[in-house]
């Protein structure tokens, strides 16, 4: 079996994990999680040098920070399937006494998570801090972060974007998940953010685009190109166009599944569209 077939199987299994996790507790955020499944699979399997025998300081490895913490299902699924913890633990998602809290946290000691996120707009600052620490430690590895597009409405991001350019934080690759949706509707309707590419460039960032953010090859190419842009005195941003709810036809192209779990019948339909590949948890 080819490597791309393996990755494709993993994406389908991650989708199943996401759907089953949120259905299990009738809560959570499937839409954005499904939209970023391919990104997480490529990042953790093809791009980052990382160590599943987790160490908080992350010296001599690449680091990832999830700023839009509500897409925790995809994060948890990919961490588990990358060996950070047992996949059976996905069954505890959002339940009492679980390490898999509704939004990611270090508080319960879940391997793979380095900061709490959920209250939006804070992850880029944290990623910059980790990148600055890597420079001080003469550690040449990179820091990756993921942000929702709606999340960019939080002002702290723009403080961070300004800082990173002014201070040449060029060991950071910040990806924005441009699915165009947020809770109250499309991002254009709720608060039009204008031309994000022009905005990042005006702030002094190198900006790349991944037009097909649900295509494994396109993501790999985009992230590889982004890596090649690091170390050149500018922070790097990837604008990644994704489809919210990708892989489940009735969840796609709408904000309705941002924070809603499928019922029993809907789950059955959704899983039928994504037949088991690597084994359910």
């Amino acid at each position, binding site marked *: 079996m080819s490597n791309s077939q393996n990755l494709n199987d993993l994406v389908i299994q991650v989708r199943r994990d996401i759907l089953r996790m949120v259905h299990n507790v009738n809560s959570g955020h499937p839409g954005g999680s499904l939209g970023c499944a391919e990104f997480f699979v490529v990042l953790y399997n093809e791009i980052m040098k990382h160590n599943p025998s987790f160490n*908080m300081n992350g010296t001599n490895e690449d680091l990832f*920070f999830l700023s839009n913490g509500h897409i925790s299902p995809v994060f948890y699924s990919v961490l588990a399937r990358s060996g950070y913890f047992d996949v059976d633990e996905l069954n505890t998602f959002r339940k009492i006494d679980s390490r898999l809290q509704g939004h990611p946290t270090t508080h319960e000691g879940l391997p793979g998570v380095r*900061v709490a996120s959920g*209250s939006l707009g804070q992850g880029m600052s*944290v990623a910059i*801090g980790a990148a600055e620490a890597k420079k001080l430690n003469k550690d040449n590895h990179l820091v990756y972060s993921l942000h929702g597009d709606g999340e960019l409405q939080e002002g*702290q991001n723009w403080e961070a974007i300004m*800082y990173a350019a002014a201070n040449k934080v060029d060991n950071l690759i910040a990806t924005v998940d441009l699915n165009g949706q947020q809770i109250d509707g499309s991002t254009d309707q709720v608060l039009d953010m204008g031309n994000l590419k022009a905005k990042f460039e005006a702030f002094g960032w190198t900006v790349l685009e991944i037009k097909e953010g649900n295509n494994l090859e396109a993501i790999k190419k985009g992230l590889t190109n982004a890596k090649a842009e690091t170390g050149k005195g500018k922070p790097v941003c990837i604008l990644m166009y994704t489809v919210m709810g990708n892989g489940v036809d009735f969840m796609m192209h709408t904000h309705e599944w941002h924070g809603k779990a499928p019922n029993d019948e809907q789950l059955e339909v959704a899983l039928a569209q994504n037949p088991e590949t690597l084994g359910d948890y």
Partner: protein
Amino acid sequence: MKKYTDTGKKDTRSGFGAGLTELGKTNENVVALCADLTGSLKMDDFKKNHPERFFQVGIAEANMIGIAAGMTIGGKIPFTGTFANFSTGRVYDQIRQSVAYSGKNVKICASHAGVTLGEDGATHQILEDIGLMKMLPGMTVINTCDYNQTKAATIAVAEHDGPVYLRFGRPKVANFTPEDQTFEIGKAVLLNEGADVTIVATGHLVWEALQAAEKLEEKGISAEVINIHTIKPLDEEAILKSVKKTGCVVTCEEHNYLGGLGESVARVLAENHPTPQAFVATQDTFGESGTPDELMDKYGLNAEAIITKAKKVIGRK
């Protein structure tokens, strides 16, 4: 009573600056971040000596807290510096999620706390910060009383693994604690033994408490004075031991009586040893422009106010 001598008025923020300078030499993991107030926070020396470890973030406090949280992930010990108002209320959620809930080893260093910031007025004078910070699980809250203690505390918090809120002030005040002191987080300092009333004070009010105790002694009242530099974790044992002897207490702080040291003491007493208590603190109000002395006088935050409350609370025994 035990005599304390002011060795020359100094600002507590300079004690912070001196402590940071010392840490720069002794601990290479210490980094400093400032939001455009380097001179006010007395961080110039650190900046000059260790430019590679000093991070000017501009007027962007939220970003500063987040960057500090991220730096701990590489093993750094970040000290953030700005005024108390901008160190807490302005960035409460950043501290809550990225620092406290995430258990990050960030030292939030806050100058110009309380009304003694003076002429700038209420927009800059926070009287709610102790409450905001002490409510965060895992946060250590320290409010130092003079230059020497602030320097010692700054050095001590670098050795403590976990988030710390270190609160100090702007004006030059009496410097009376030992230059060579060892600062023990969470350990009250018994300044004077007494029998009739316990005065528990923090920050700038500690010196005022000593002045009050002297005057009370002249009137035949024996006051025990305790310097509580750590509001959380609170040295409950020291407070209980004292009030069991004296039977009443006055708590003193440059902070709102809601959410401050006084309320923390009241809880300890209510649960363990109900005792009459009087509060020297601001009365759920904002500050205003004026000189530090005028403001301390107007808002009842001085030796006179402590004496009045002490006499009153003794009468309730």
